């Protein structure tokens, strides 16, 4: 699933400029993982996976960098700080912000075909 479609499904907005890069149109996501616990995220291989989280801190972005995640969906319009945006953009990670909850985002993306991570 392409990033724009994911963003449309969750009625989100891109909060960094990364969607204009060539990687943006190439990225194709097949799985999603929802967690506020970064150690849990670090347990799995996260290739082609979207992370849905209510945790909006610099460590959310660092976890993405370490785990090769390239798309974060921040639930319930949590504030995304400038240092998060800078690190994400520098690391070629897209951040989507939405007012939907983790539960709603997970349901919407599952219904539209993204698979879970085990």
């Amino acid at each position, binding site marked *: 699933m392409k990033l724009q479609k994911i963003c449309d499904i969750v009625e989100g907005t891109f909060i960094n400029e990364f969607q204009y890069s060539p990687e943006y149109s190439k990225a194709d996501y097949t799985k999603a993982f929802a967690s506020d616990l970064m*150690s849990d995220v*670090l*347990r799995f291989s996260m290739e082609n996976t979207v992370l849905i989280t209510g945790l909006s*801190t*610099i*460590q959310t972005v*660092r*976890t993405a960098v*370490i*785990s090769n995640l390239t798309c974060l969906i921040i639930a319930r319009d949590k504030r995304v700080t400038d240092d998060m945006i800078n690190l994400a953009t520098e690391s070629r990670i897209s951040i989507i912000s939405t007012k939907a909850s983790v539960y709603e985002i997970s349901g919407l993306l599952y219904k539209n075909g993204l698979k879970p991570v085990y």
Partner: protein
Amino acid sequence: MKMQYFIQGGDFSAGGRASTEVKSTIKQFNIPPDKVRRIAVALYEAEMNVVAHAYRGTMNVDLRPDFIRVVFEDEGPGIEDIEKAMEEGFSTASDKVRQMGFGAGMGLPNIKKNCDEMILSSIPGKGTRLEIKVVF
């Protein structure tokens, strides 16, 4: 190739910076991507442990053609019971650590899972030493 980093205890905004730097360095070598990810996860969890529990620490990286060895040494309260600390779910982390998405007692088990050798020793009241090795 050797690299050394200083880790400041309690500095949650900088926590993970050293590990991400090491990850981008080792990515330039001919190391399988899954090994790079495993090394990065182990280093990040270990770095966050120093940030979360110690006053200060160092991370010394020794990168060789066929393996990487990383030693973390910190000054801090140390670990009273290493066997207990290795149990999944056991944690002494503060609320602040938990608010950053860590402190659920998964750090040390995650490190063990991602490396080929792990040696953990500690002197309570003085500090902790963790050595990890991943073979390519």
